[in-house]
């Protein structure tokens, strides 16, 4: 199977070639390329399909026990210093390749239906392909520097895709926020990489780990410093995987088209952080204090994400906070050393969360037929309800995803979440407590979402709710723009858009099921969401046998089940999930409990959740306005003091020059004299000393 490995570089390169071809076409022959829509789509999808087949072949070969394969070329050199780039295929890479290519493949098929009427259809495919290429390049990276390269590239793709609808103000703000927040994380990552390179002289994961271990053991490097280095590197994943405190970009990123939310901001890119922790595991495992920080960051994120998700009314924002919370689980697992469990959850989550997002896209697509192309209306759950009757396939797959994320056996999420909670309990019961509580909250908000979207009666034609939502939106904009700054153009534009819609396809009074290109990926992703968990059951953990930390050796298939432990752990997490579901059904299905009344009773807590723990507001004052003020002050200094000082110096010389002119006759001689004098002075001075 050697040729297979020699050509593994094709996996990231194929989608890149597709993206570049489409991009060049768009720049040079815009009109023509935009017209061959289906052709471009088929082209891009088949290239990614080829990459997917290759990935599956590689995974098969790795499962059969092929040794890891690495190929490197010299990339940059200076003196005896060499930087290499290349690709490596091992168990972790093979698994990630398959996850990324399958999710991307289904998302691309789905895109055809979702973006059917968008003028940027071809451009969207080009971006999607570019993103897939960067992400695949990230997972095959053999060293930390190359990871950083692709890490930034996926960030750029995410920037382009969030800002895809660039004429929407919210999208414009969101894409910049995402990029800058990620850069803050990358700042740490870059410093961490430099520090680790300084200490160990290598960018290779294993060598770095080995040498760092040695250094810490011999005491050449203080454990405090080692922890600092590790935490700096960890800042990268904190931003990319939306961990507290750098999570603020992820919910806003939902301004991008929904296929992107599914692919980048749920299934693949945000998981890159967890992937990097896994790759850096050989380094982190030598630094227990850093592992502690990682675990606690994960736990806090899981909790904050879940508690924020409870009160969200935008279906995509709700899912975004749920993603953040689930990523918290994975990071926590990594932190307590449950390497296999964290990656297992990454895999199951990738499938069921991609499906949930695509399902939400299907819902939005259906809602747009009723309320028009206005994200404020089409994505708000207060306008939904009873959609199960109109969109049965979407409803069933969404329910499957909901059950999977809630951890109800035998759906995929149960096995991975249970494994994480089990490992966490063994490491630190306090962390387990947070995780367990979060599991209950997760079940609650997910079923709240499911019930208010698919059950009950349809509220999409309620003019009063629509009006309220519009007013709330305008108030929000007014607040964010400052009083009086509200842009009247936006209003007229919205009106235009509405008219445009009305003339094209008239609003119907009931939503419809999405086309086959959208439902097919939902069905396809539902299958792994149900069964993929079975590869990692405690009875026969094939997953753990395949994916384990590089340092560990696992013989055979781990299958020792302690029934008592399994039943208490699994039972308690299922139990808390059932409590959450029951509460949700009482509040949102049978309406026995009025949520508004509860909200009123615990108003401070409700406000805290509704306002996303006030992270955005604090950052706005502290960083956004702070940096603006600082920049303005520096500019003032530059303009008045620095420039003024140098100008003054010039002025003084001019004046003295003028004065001297009357003393000396002729300027040229004067300058010659000065130059001569200065030279003489220099030579004399240095001769004397």
């Amino acid at each position, binding site marked *: 199977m050697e040729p297979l490995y020699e050509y593994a570089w094709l996996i990231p390169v194929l989608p890149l070639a597709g993206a570049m071809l489409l991009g060049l076409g768009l720049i040079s022959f*815009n009109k023509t390329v935009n017209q061959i829509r289906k052709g471009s789509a088929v082209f891009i999808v088949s290239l990614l399909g080829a990459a997917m087949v290759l990935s599956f072949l590689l995974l098969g070969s790795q499962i059969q026990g092929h040794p890891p394969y690495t190929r490197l070329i010299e990339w940059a050199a200076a*003196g005896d210093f060499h930087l290499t780039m290349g690709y490596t295929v091992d168990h972790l890479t093979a698994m990630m390749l398959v996850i990324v290519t399958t999710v991307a493949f289904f998302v691309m098929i789905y895109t055809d239906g979702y973006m059917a009427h968008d003028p940027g259809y071809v451009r969207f495919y080009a971006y999607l392909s570019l993103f897939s290429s960067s992400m695949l390049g990230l997972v095959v990276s053999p060293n930390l520097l190359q990871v950083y390269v692709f890490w*930034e590239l996926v960030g750029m793709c995410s*920037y382009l895709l969030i800002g895809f609808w*660039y004429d929407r103000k919210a999208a414009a703000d969101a894409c910049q926020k995402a990029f800058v927040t990620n850069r803050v994380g990358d700042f740490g990552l870059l410093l961490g990489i430099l520090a680790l390179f*300084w200490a160990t*002289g290598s960018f290779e994961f294993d060598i770095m780990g080995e040498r760092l271990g040695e250094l810490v053991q011999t005491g*050449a490097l203080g454990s405090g410093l080692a922890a600092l280095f590790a935490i700096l590197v960890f800042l990268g994943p904190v931003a990319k995987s939306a961990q507290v405190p750098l999570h603020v970009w992820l919910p806003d990123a939902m301004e991008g088209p929904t296929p992107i939310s599914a692919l980048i901001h749920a299934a693949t890119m945000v998981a890159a952080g967890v992937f990097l922790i896994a790759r850096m595991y050989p380094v982190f495992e030598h630094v227990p204090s850093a592992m502690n920080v990682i675990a606690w960051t994960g736990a806090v994120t899981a909790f904050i994400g879940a508690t924020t998700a409870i009160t969200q009314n935008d279906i995509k924002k709700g899912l975004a906070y749920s993603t953040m919370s689930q990523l918290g689980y994975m990071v926590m697992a990594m932190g307590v050393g449950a390497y296999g469990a964290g990656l297992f959850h990454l895999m199951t989550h990738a499938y069921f969360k991609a499906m949930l997002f695509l399902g939400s896209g299907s819902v939005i697509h259906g809602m747009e037929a009723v309320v028009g192309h206005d994200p404020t209306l089409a994505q708000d759950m207060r306008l939904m309800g009873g959609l199960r009757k109109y969109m049965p396939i979407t409803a069933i797959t969404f329910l499957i995803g909901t059950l999977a994320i809630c951890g109800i056996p035998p759906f995929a999420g149960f096995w991975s979440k249970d494994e994480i909670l089990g490992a966490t309990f063994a490491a630190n019961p306090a962390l387990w407590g947070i995780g367990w509580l979060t599991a209950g909250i997760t079940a609650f908000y997910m079923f709240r979402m499911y019930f208010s979207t698919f059950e009950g009666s349809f509220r999409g034609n309620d003019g009063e709710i629509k009006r309220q939502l519009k007013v709330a939106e305008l108030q929000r904009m007014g607040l964010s723009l400052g009083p009086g700054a509200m842009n009247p153009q936006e209003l007229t534009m919205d009106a235009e858009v509405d008219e445009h819609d009305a003339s094209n396809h008239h609003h119907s009074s009931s939503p419809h099921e999405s086309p086959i290109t959208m439902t097919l990926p939902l069905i396809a992703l539902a299958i792994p969401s149900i069964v993929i968990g079975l590869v990692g059951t405690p009875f026969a953990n094939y997953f753990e046998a395949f994916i384990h930390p590089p340092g560990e050796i696992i013989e055979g298939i781990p299958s020792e089940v302690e029934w008592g432990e399994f039943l208490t752990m699994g039972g308690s997490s299922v139990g808390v999930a059932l409590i959450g579901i029951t509460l949700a059904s009482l509040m949102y299905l049978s309406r026995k409990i009025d949520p508004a009344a509860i909200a009123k009773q615990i108003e401070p807590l409700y406000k805290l959740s509704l306002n996303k723990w006030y992270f955005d507001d604090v950052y706005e004052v502290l960083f956004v306005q702070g940096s603006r003020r600082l920049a303005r002050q520096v500019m003032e200094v530059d303009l008045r003091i620095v420039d003024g000082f*140098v100008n003054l110096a010039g002025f003084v010389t001019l004046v003295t020059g003028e004065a001297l002119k009357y003393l000396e006759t002729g300027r040229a001689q004067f300058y010659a004299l000065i130059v001569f004098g200065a030279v003489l002075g220099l*030579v004399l001075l240095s001769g004397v000393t």
Partner: protein
Amino acid sequence: MNTTDFPWLTTAILFPFLASLLIPFIPDKEGKTVRWYALVVGLIDFAILVYAFYTQYDMSNPGLQLVESYSWVESLDLRWSVGADGLSMPLILLTGFITTLAILASWPVTLKPKLFYFLMLAMYSGQLGVFAVQDMLLFFLMWELELIPVYLLLAIWGGKKRLYAATKFILYTAGGSLFILVAALAMAFYGDTVTFDMRALMNKEYALNFQLLTYGAFLIAYAVKLPIFPLHTWLPDAHGEATAPVHMLLAGILLKMGGYALIRMNVEMLPDAHVYFAPILVILGVVNIIYAALTSFAQRNLKRKIAYSSISHMGFVLIGIASFTDLGLSGAMLQMVSHGLIGASLFFLVGSTYDRTHTLILDEMGGVGKKMPKIFAMFTACSLASLALPGMSGFVAEVMVFVGFATSDAYSQLFKVIVVTLAAVGVILTPIYLLSMLREIFYGPENKELTSHEVLVDAEPREVFIIACLLIPIIGIGFYPKLITQIYDVKTIAVTAKLEDSLTALAEQQTRTRPLALQPSSAPVVAPLIQ
């Protein structure tokens, strides 16, 4: 004809100037013929440079190549001597490339086209001369000569405040170059022999105090050019007023002269003084990066914003030069080439945008992306290149500087940590101002006030071509940096080796008066593990 003996560099330097002398005789009132003439001259000259590079230049040779030396003014011992080595060759090629593109970029110029193209070609010669000459006095002459076209180009074709900007430019640079003259003369008359030849000057042994004084004099001159804080304030004015093609040359080539001369004279000829001055360079580099980035963020004028971003990027050149490592110096060189390409592309796009919106104030723009998708796409690509996105040249250069400085054993750990951390803050600040700029120009709903009285047409093929020409090498270097680094690799290694000698020699000599922040004798804590 024997191609080895052919005076390639002299031809390349003189050809544009001689060709420009014919411009007054071209019968052309509207400037349609003369621009083609200038473009062809530019292309031929670039072709000569490329041909000479491919056939005559040996990349594994650290010494001076393509050498020519003719006696010029006997009594002054002034010789016309030119040559190219790893430091100058990439910049000579860059000059040919950018200047030719700048001529293509000046297609819309309608005011006094003959004079304009005459000056452009004269500048072509002057710039090549600065990088190629190997005689101190000649270097000074070239340095001064190239100021005149720039002054005129600024003063005649500039914006509203063009006279102020041009005067400021000439005062700063001419004031700075006075220091070059003083230092050059001093070096020439030092010791037993009087010579202006750069190689001979390099081999002279100067006393330390003399080195420090001349180093300081050179530094002031080059600090104006590069520019280094606090001598940078001419640049935003000049850049803010210049037209797009002049802008491309200012950012693409002229700033690089400062960096080039800093390596050529301060580092190569005065290595002992460099050991003392290096920490100052590093600190100034950090100040450049952060200070200019913050100022750029606050600017509301598009041209001034990009001008400050240039200053910010030059900070990395300073840190690289002062890193005492192969990698750092190599990164500084690469940053100069890379910024030459990226800066030129950004300034060209600013010009193209201005041609359509007729405003440079960000508040008056907004939402123009819908009408000009190609310019939007190209602007985005070039801004991403400027914020050091991997896969583009700026990233490689910055990473090389970072890694080079971090692994340098010339500085104490604490100093390195502070410098690297602060320089990395630039990594956060750069996207903030560049992406804010993109957002304010292109994103969001269309600005009705702007679209009501300006016709926004998308990029024409000429503009796409220019940007494509610049982006191809940017991405090429980003993917495979050895494309450029191999040209100068042996040279930078030789320079660093010489610096290492000075460093160790000084460390042995002066254990008592150790320079600030320098601890040459103390190896890093974990040195044994570094390969």
